[in-house]
């Protein structure tokens, strides 16, 4: 039995009730439905706002991060007044302000193989708005194992993708992407940037697909992938088929339970600056500031030229990471060198490349130029 709508709800949702495809029954379906949104960031913002506004009865939010000012260029569910607060709490307050008649359940924890099945089990639909490959594979596998639709979207710079992966009726994420790209090939948004409005466009499409699936109307993007490019303003569609060799939803699937997704992808399941211990090849900003006073050190900046306009270190030479392999002749392997980027991960890949080319005297600036800006030269901006 679907729940009845109150007098207030009939007024609130009147523009829905006027559409024959939704109507009173559709609105009651939405009130009776539940959606789990993984990630309360760029995509999670419009997704959860529109699902709440539409009257989806129960919304779950999974995130363990706090609001940072660098989020607000795109994560419009948060605000300047909630900087430093838990994202799930910041988002919950906004959603309940928009629609106090819904229930918002928050999970202030990383979405992992240990808790994901428990969290997702009681929802009708899962929306993937995470920012990293391990959690995307996890989200897919959970949806396949629980037999739920996984409304997927992801973004990078000006590009977006949207699909509905629903193994009962079509392909899953792994049918299209059986393996993740090698670590480091695809930069994250923290590294490569993203146009602020892009998650708005893509997340709104993702919310549209979720509402269609919950209402059972229209043609959801099952077996189809939408590819959007903001610069070209192009929308392309391709057909996706179930992969007979899919390891989670194929007839001979060999993955029957959740695995270690960080190991599978070779990267951590977050899109943050690394803050773990000091590795053998690391040098901290403080140490470097001492070393440059006494020793001759070559400073190699592997960021892109446009990033140098934001911040730079004096006397550093710039070779963008993508050009490093072809410009090794400009460097001397006998020289002591410190390699750096924005936050330390691109430079770590640069260091690996140099090490494999015989450079033995290279250190990686831990935390990148941003840590220099935090610990040594506080006049330098952090980005």
């Amino acid at each position, binding site marked *: 039995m679907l729940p009845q709508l109150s007098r207030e709800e009939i007024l609130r949702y009147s523009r829905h009730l006027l559409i024959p495809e939704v109507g009173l029954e559709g609105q009651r379906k939405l009130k009776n439905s539940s959606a789990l949104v993984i*990630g309360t*960031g*760029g*995509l*999670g913002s419009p997704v959860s706002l529109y699902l709440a506004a539409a009257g989806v009865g129960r919304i779950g939010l999974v995130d363990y991060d706090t609001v940072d000012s660098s989020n607000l260029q795109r994560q419009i569910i948060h605000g300047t007044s909630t900087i430093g607060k838990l994202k799930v709490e910041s988002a919950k307050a906004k959603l309940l302000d928009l629609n106090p008649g819904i229930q918002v359940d928050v999970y202030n924890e990383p979405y992992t193989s240990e808790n994901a099945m428990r969290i997702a089990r009681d929802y009708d639909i899962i929306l*993937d*708005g*995470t*920012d*990293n*490959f391990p959690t*995307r594979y996890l989200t897919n596998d959970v949806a396949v194992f629980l037999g739920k639709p996984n409304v997927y*979207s*992801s*973004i*990078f*710079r*000006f*590009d977006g*993708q949207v699909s509905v992966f629903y193994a009962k009726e079509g392909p899953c994420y792994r049918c*299209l*992407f*059986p*393996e*993740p*790209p090698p670590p480091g*090939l*695809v*930069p*994250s*948004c923290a590294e*490569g940037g*993203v146009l602020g409005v892009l*998650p708005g466009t893509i997340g709104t499409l993702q919310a549209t697909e979720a509402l269609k699936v919950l209402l059972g109307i229209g043609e959801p993007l099952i077996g189809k*992938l939408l*590819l959007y*490019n903001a*610069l*070209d303003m192009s929308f*392309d*569609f*391709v*057909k*996706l*088929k179930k*992969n007979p060799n899919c390891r989670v939803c194929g007839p001979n699937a060999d993955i029957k339970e959740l695995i270690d997704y960080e190991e599978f992808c070779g990267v951590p399941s977050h*899109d943050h600056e690394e803050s773990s211990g000091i590795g053998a090849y690391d040098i901290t900003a403080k140490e470097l500031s001492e070393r440059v006073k006494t020793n001759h050190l070559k400073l190699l900046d592997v960021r892109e030229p446009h990033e140098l306009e934001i911040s730079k270190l004096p006397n550093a030479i710039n070779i*963008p990471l*993508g050009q490093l*392999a*072809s410009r090794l002749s400009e460097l001397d392997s006998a020289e002591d060198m410190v390699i750096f980027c924005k936050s330390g991960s691109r430079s770590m890949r640069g260091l690996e490349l140099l090490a494999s080319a015989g450079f033995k005297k290279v250190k990686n600036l831990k935390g990148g130029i941003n840590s220099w800006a935090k610990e040594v030269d506080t006049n330098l901006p952090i980005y």
Partner: protein
Amino acid sequence: MPVLRIPTPLRAYTNGESNVTVNGSNISEALTDLTTQYPALRPHLFNEGGELRAFVNLFVGESNIKDLQGVSTPIRDGDKIMLIPSIAGG
């Protein structure tokens, strides 16, 4: 001639080009031409054994070449070939 669409993450290796005109009568020849024009792309598309990497998805029109004839899939003038990237941002 067929046009191959380069996704944003790989444009760093094509001097920023988003659409590259390629020669060839099938996907394999088109990719050979593409990586001759832009050698820095090669390691991102092929493994050490010269095979297309598993995460690389190529579509001719609306269809994945994995559902057609793989790298032997024939292509014609005017075909739009799309390289579909794995992206994970959110």
